[in-house]
């Protein structure tokens, strides 16, 4: 038996394919006779469609058909209203798909899409979220199934009695996931069966939902997603591209490629809701919290209720006897918001970790020390112990590595040439969960092994990590083990989301591999031996086990500098320390954590989805105007983790690292901006104009 592979750095198995251009994504498979579809979007917000004129589009050379509500193939399931496409003459948000052109060439499809004429009866619309919106209501639960409101102790009394009180409203704008690969699909019908190459975070649920929509037996749909160009939540559940491509392919009886454009993504694949969050903290003079309240407002669409769990972060982060959280949402005439990297925890942590910084200033306590003082020993609402909680270890280790000691809390005083310099810290946490998965392991007479599981590698390194797990569980030389993922014909597995992928999938892989070893004994097989395992019994038992709460924790340390003349902000250094259980592959784990942290820089400084209230459309719907962090925006960034052996999670003891990297990261940046300039940013993003008056005044002193 060779040395363990789990825990050792390993480059990606598909690395060679990705650096040579051989890796194929959803619309890159050679398909004979393929044609192209192009979506036509509504240019009104709320309306009934009164007339469609497709004559000019149909007359365009190369155009095969134009589909709309009257002639599109019928769909059979309305479970997901956002996917009930081209079925009704109604428009619920600007950008909704109202027609689909199919043509022999991409150029013809695109030209004809611009020639489809629609007439509408428009209705008044409401697209702006505010704390006074008349439509605000309390949803039954928040995503995915948390209670909407919680209360422990007597917040009002605890808050009123507190020596130091902080009461502020924090606002975050809409954010768009923007994976580098726009959502795309190639659909083919073969003898009544549907085969789709699709870009998604889990093709098992995509195949199930397509089967429902097209009224097919589940095993008549195959969805292949071998390589996926990022998702960040926006490909978590099926999106319109696979449904539209399948409809088009059925209508023209040809294979169809449909790639959404970058611009179309802004209204068609979900986004992070804007939030309005009021945080109240009551503490003694030493910063020990007595009362915490977090009241969050967000938006959803008229089609689907998506209630972001924005305040859930505050339920478990810091100790206080008196506490309360609430959520209210408004249904607006907007596209349906959805998951984006740490939905809830990400914007929620911006508010709470900013307020904690404000409390540190108000009490004159160092912000690292303040967080350590308020660390929770047990879950503050449930009273349940943590399976492991290493927030304090992350804060201490991070502070030591970053050089936090002796930090002067005075704001706006550190000059390096033309720059004002400051440092900031924030905590972070994210639930550690696992879902039921299946996997198979096969031994071949030639001594090789094949492990199969419909996991998705959207850039996480899942393929490599699961192969490492399989190698160890089989106890054979690595070169003898092959892994297959990304195909709904493989043993079904949950999607890559909620930082559950590695925990869920590795459990099934190790179970299948161990079962195979048990079956084989010491003898090499004389014929193919294949076993399949399903972890539903184990994960159900875990869900039912209330003896521990399970979270990953982290701490971010940031140094920024602000130009005294222009207000330009640079993040010079960023360090994230994390407690994420066992790390399967340090190479890809570090990359993923840094990716989350960088998206936090992007959230703090660059990204802001702007919706025009008059026309209900996303104004800055491309990379020229919706800015994301570029190479020059990242100077020194480092992620590492503390040793954490948590026996209460899953066989490998992994917590998942997809989201924890972004939680708290934006607050660490804005807390550093405050330290540098004295300007408190309670509405993201930081912009030059928010800093200029103050830095100019500091310059004059």
């Amino acid at each position: 038996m060779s040395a363990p592979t789990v825990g050792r750095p390993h480059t990606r198995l598909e690395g060679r394919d990705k650096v040579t251009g051989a890796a194929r994504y959803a619309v890159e498979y050679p398909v004979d006779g393929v044609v192209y579809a192009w979506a036509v979007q509504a240019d009104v917000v709320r309306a009934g469609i009164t007339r469609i004129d497709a004559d000019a589009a149909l007359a365009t050379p190369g155009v095969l058909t134009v589909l709309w509500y009257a002639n599109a193939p019928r769909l059979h399931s309305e479970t997901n209203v956002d996917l009930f496409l081209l079925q009704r003459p109604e428009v619920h948000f600007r950008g909704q798909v109202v027609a689909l052109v199919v043509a022999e060439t991409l150029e013809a499809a695109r030209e004809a899409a611009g020639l489809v004429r629609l007439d509408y009866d428009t209705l008044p619309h409401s697209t702006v979220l505010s704390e006074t919106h008349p439509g605000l209501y309390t949803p039954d639960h928040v995503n995915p199934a948390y209670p909407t409101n919680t209360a422990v102790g007597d917040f009002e009394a605890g808050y009123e009695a507190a020596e130091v009180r902080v009461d502020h409203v924090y606002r975050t704008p809409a954010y768009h996931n923007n994976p580098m690969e726009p959502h795309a699909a190639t659909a083919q019908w073969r003898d009544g069966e549907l085969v789709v190459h699709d870009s998604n975070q889990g093709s098992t649920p995509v195949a199930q939902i397509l089967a429902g929509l097209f009224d097919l037996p589940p095993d008549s749909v195959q969805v292949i997603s071998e390589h996926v160009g990022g998702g960040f939540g926006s490909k978590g559940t099926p999106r319109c591209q696979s449904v539209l491509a399948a409809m088009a392919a059925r209508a023209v009886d040809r294979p169809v490629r449909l790639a959404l454009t970058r611009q179309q993504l802004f209204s068609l694949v979900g986004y992070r809701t804007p939030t309005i969050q009021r945080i109240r903290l009551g503490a003694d003079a030493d910063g020990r919290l007595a009362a915490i309240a977090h009241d969050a407002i967000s938006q959803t669409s008229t089609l689907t209720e998506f209630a972001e769990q924005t305040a859930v972060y505050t339920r478990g982060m810091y100790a206080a006897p008196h506490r309360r959280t609430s959520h209210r949402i408004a249904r607006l005439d907007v596209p349906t918001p959805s998951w984006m990297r740490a939905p809830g925890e990400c914007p929620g942590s911006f508010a709470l970790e900013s307020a904690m910084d404000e409390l540190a200033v108000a009490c004159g306590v160092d912000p690292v020390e303040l967080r350590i003082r308020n660390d929770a020993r047990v879950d503050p609402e449930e009273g349940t112990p943590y399976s492991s909680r290493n927030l304090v270890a992350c804060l201490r280790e991070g502070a030591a590595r970053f050089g936090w000691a002796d930090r002067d809390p005075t704001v706006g005083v550190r000059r390096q040439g033309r720059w004002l310099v400051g440092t900031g810290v924030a905590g972070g946490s994210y639930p550690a969960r696992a879902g039921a998965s299946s996997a198979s392991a096969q031994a071949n007479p030639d001594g090789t092994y094949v492990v199969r599981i419909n996991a998705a590698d959207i850039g996480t390194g899942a393929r490599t990590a699961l192969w490492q797990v399989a190698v160890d569980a089989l106890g054979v030389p690595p070169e003898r083990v092959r892994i297959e993922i990304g195909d709904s014909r493989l043993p079904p597995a949950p999607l890559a989301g909620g930082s559950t992928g590695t925990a869920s999938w590795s459990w099934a892989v190790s179970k299948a591999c161990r079962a195979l070893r048990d079956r084989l004994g010491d003898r090499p097989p004389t014929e193919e031996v294949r076993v399949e395992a399903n972890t539903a019994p184990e994960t159900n038992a875990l869900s039912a086990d209330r003896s521990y709460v399970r979270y990953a924790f982290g701490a971010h340390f940031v140094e920024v500098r602000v130009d005294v003349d222009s207000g330009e902000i640079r993040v010079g250094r960023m360090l994230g320390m994390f407690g994420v259980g066992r790390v399967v592959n340090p190479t890809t784990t570090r990359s993923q954590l840094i990716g989350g942290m960088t998206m936090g820089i992007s959230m703090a400084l660059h990204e802001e989805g702007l919706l025009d209230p008059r026309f209900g459309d996303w104004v800055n719907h491309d990379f020229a105007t919706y800015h994301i962090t570029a190479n020059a925006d990242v100077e020194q960034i480092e992620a590492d983790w503390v040793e954490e052996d948590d026996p209460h999670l899953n066989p490998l003891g992994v917590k998942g690292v997809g989201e924890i990297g972004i939680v708290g990261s934006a607050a660490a940046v804005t807390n550093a901006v405050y330290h540098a300039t004295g300007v408190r940013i309670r509405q993201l993003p930081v912009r030059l104009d928010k800093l200029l008056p103050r830095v100019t005044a500091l310059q004059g002193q």
Partner: protein
Amino acid sequence: MPEETERSSVTLAVNGQQHRLRLDNRTTLLDALREHLGLIGAKKGCDHGQCGSCTVLLDGRRVKSCLIFAVAASGSAVVSVEGLADGADLQPLQQCFIDHDAFQCGYCTSGQICSATGMLDEVRKGWPSVVTADLAAGPARLSEEEIRERMSGNLCRCAAYQQIVAAIRATATAEAVLR
């Protein structure tokens, strides 16, 4: 199909191989590669020249192939990511991208590698960038800041930027581009 007046004959030398295509005049170089030549290494991330995923080398210089009509590139030599490796032997830059984990989802990677290839050639030729301190001081020194600036036309949402810089530095050091 488009009228014949809307189509043109286009000759392209792609990765050393001559191609003669009859293309819709609106076909971009990117779509010519992907949809007509089956070379899917160059990616379509935005189709507006804003993300860099479609970067290829056109007559030796890095370009965003989504912004160039194929007909306008007729007669040119194109190198896409598929043309970098010598058979089974990866270019040092490609190997460094693997070794430094300079990608996650891989969708921007072809563009990053083609862009870095072109960028290193620009540095060899002494071309300055906006962060080059002294334009009169001869060839630019390829600091991390220079690499970051020169690679900022290639977005990576997974944010492998630091690892991309490390991979390019390692390549440049080995090839003595770095002073």
